[in-house]
């Protein structure tokens, strides 16, 4: 279980993942600075913010509200559209074109990446710590404790995650938890609450193996506390697995969040979210405004592939056997 950075360095697929994830994180962190405009200016307060532009017909510099300008730069089909890498009639540059309501798609996506990343990281961190501590507990105490946790995780797995998500987002919509960060926090909680089981299953095996090692017995024999033994003598050996599964689960979480907002659930408008951009554009897919759904769709695919590739890369850097013979079949991490 030694992490070898030199193995990651020569792992093209893993490097691809690292690059994509790095770019995604940069996009999320610097979202307000990256876009040609900001969410506040372009979306939330579009009827209080003003812009000035050069009107080619009257040949004068005019001032108008952003909201009015948005109405003039809608992408709603073949005849009325602002495509990627073009300027609209108000001299505003749109790297990814505009949404059907005339708002800037790039700004929308940059801001949306932030919320995807926050929900993703939060839910994965929560489920990884839950899965990790429960796996250590099960492995250390074995027997009934282990059996009990198997039952609990099976029960949680048996619940339909999507229905649970829909129900809880509706029920909690008006409570204070539901309103934290446009509902993102409660989403992360639900993802963690339902998603830890898969990770727990995956790390339970390695944790059981580690619990058989003699240094665990040695620590027990001189009276070390169980929690300290788990943390000091067992945790270091399963963090690698948690990293791999965490990275792969993160991709899944991003898809799930996008899927929910595509269905009109999850992160509440007007907070931008990638899935909602796809939803907004789906009526125009067959028209000239095809970019609205296509661009966020491609980006989701790219980012999720990136996270999975990074997971593969980490796994191969930790476990050389998975790459040498097994190829894509993989061992060690097992995913």
């Amino acid at each position, binding site marked *: 279980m030694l992490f070898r950075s030199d193995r990651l360095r020569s792992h093209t697929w893993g490097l691809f993942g690292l690059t994509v994830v790095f770019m995604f994180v940069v996009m999320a962190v610097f979202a307000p600075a990256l876009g040609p405009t900001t969410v506040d200016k372009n979306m939330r307060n579009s009827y209080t913010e003003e812009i000035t532009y050069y009107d080619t017909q009257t040949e004068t510099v005019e001032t108008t509200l952003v909201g009015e300008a948005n109405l003039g730069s809608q992408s709603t089909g073949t005849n009325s559209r602002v495509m990627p890498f073009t300027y609209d009639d108000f001299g505003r540059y749109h790297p990814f074109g505009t949404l059907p309501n005339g708002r800037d798609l790039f700004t929308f996506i940059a801001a949306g990446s932030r919320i995807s990343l926050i929900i993703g990281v939060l839910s994965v961190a929560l489920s990884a710590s839950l899965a990790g501590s429960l796996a250590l507990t099960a492995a250390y*105490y*074995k*027997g009934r404790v*282990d059996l009990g946790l198997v039952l609990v995780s099976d029960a949680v797995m048996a619940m339909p995650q999507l229905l649970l998500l829909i129900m809880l987002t509706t029920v909690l919509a008006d409570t204070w938890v539901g309103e934290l960060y446009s509902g993102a926090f409660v989403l992360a909680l639900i993802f963690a609450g339902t998603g830890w089981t898969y990770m727990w299953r995956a790390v339970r095996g390695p944790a059981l193996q580690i619990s058989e*090692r*003699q*240094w665990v*017995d*040695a*620590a*027990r*024999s*001189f*009276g*070390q506390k169980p929690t300290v033994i788990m943390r*000091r*003598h067992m945790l*270091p050996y399963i963090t690698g697995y948690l990293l791999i599964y965490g990275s792969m689960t993160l991709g899944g979480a991003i898809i799930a969040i996008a899927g929910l907002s595509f269905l009109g659930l999850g992160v509440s408008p007007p907070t931008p979210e990638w899935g909602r951009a796809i939803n907004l554009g789906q009526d125009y897919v067959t028209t000239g405004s095809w970019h609205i759904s296509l661009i966020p769709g491609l980006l989701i695919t790219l980012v999720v592939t990136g996270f999975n590739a990074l997971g593969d890369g980490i796994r191969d850097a930790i476990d050389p056997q998975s790459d040498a013979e097994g190829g894509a079949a993989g061992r060690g991490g097992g995913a």
Partner: protein
Amino acid sequence: MSDAEPLLAVENLRTVFRTEREEIHAVDGVSFEIDAGETVGLVGESGSGKSVTARSILGLVDHPGSIDEGAIRFRGEDLTDDNWDDHRGDIAIVFQDPGSALNPVYTVGNQIREALKIHQNLRGREARERAIDLLEDVGIPDAATRVGEYPHQLSGGMQQRAVIAMALACDPDLLVCDEPTTALDVTIQAQILDLLADLQREDDLAILFITHDMGVIEDATDRVNVIYAGEVVERAPTEALFENPQHPYTQALLRSIPGRTPPDEPLPTIEGEVPTPTGPATDCRFAPRCPEAFGACREVHPEHEPVGDGTVERTAACLLHDDRYPDETGLDGSGSDGIEGARSDGGASR
């Protein structure tokens, strides 16, 4: 054995592993005592229940195993009443494979300090200095440097010394050595045995020495318990046992020590392997492999009977020594040349 209370008394210990398919009586009614400052050996083949006995004494038996019966009295207090935590550090263990008894992600000093913190409440520089002292005590040269090194930077012998230092950090009264020299080569083995003897002399440490190596037993122990398939079959002072083994199993074990056979003769072996005890004993478990077995051996479970000439306290669990069962083959009858041989050359060979 003195009349005073022994340091550790294992009484009729029964450790059973229950799986869905079967019940394995890994330790089946083992009893022995250890007095302060003495070394008691527990010798037997692989799978005879030696290590499970050690783990039972330390309360390290994991699911699906459990101690079903018996008592482990440490200074008179029964540990099986879940009293292990009160005596953590009084009994320390040295495992067979030093490479796996040390956690590779922490330095040697770090692991010794962990025990020091718990048992001597030492922290920081004090703990570090004490760890260096301990490493010096176990004969590690340049201890001040070694204390900051990782287990993989030490040789096998050094690692075992470090493990012993870790055990000593608890300031134990009893050291359970579970095959401490098996993973080491012969010269290192001798050094470790010398070290244990020195430590015992200095600290009046009692040692339970578990091994399959009769040579080590002869060198290192005061009294021996021979264990077979979860049961003690013979107990005797070491010297008496080697001079005149009474149980056929002990005789066979001693015959199969390489040095005792003349160079041109093939080394005698014990045919077959240790059976896995899956139920309470109803017969002699050694009977299928025993050259002296007679009819009753397969029907009666032998009890410990005093053996020998009465000058030393020793017992063996064998029907050959039980007056109620007339020995049909006889101790000196035909087909028992092994016993005669062992008797006559037992004392002379060393």
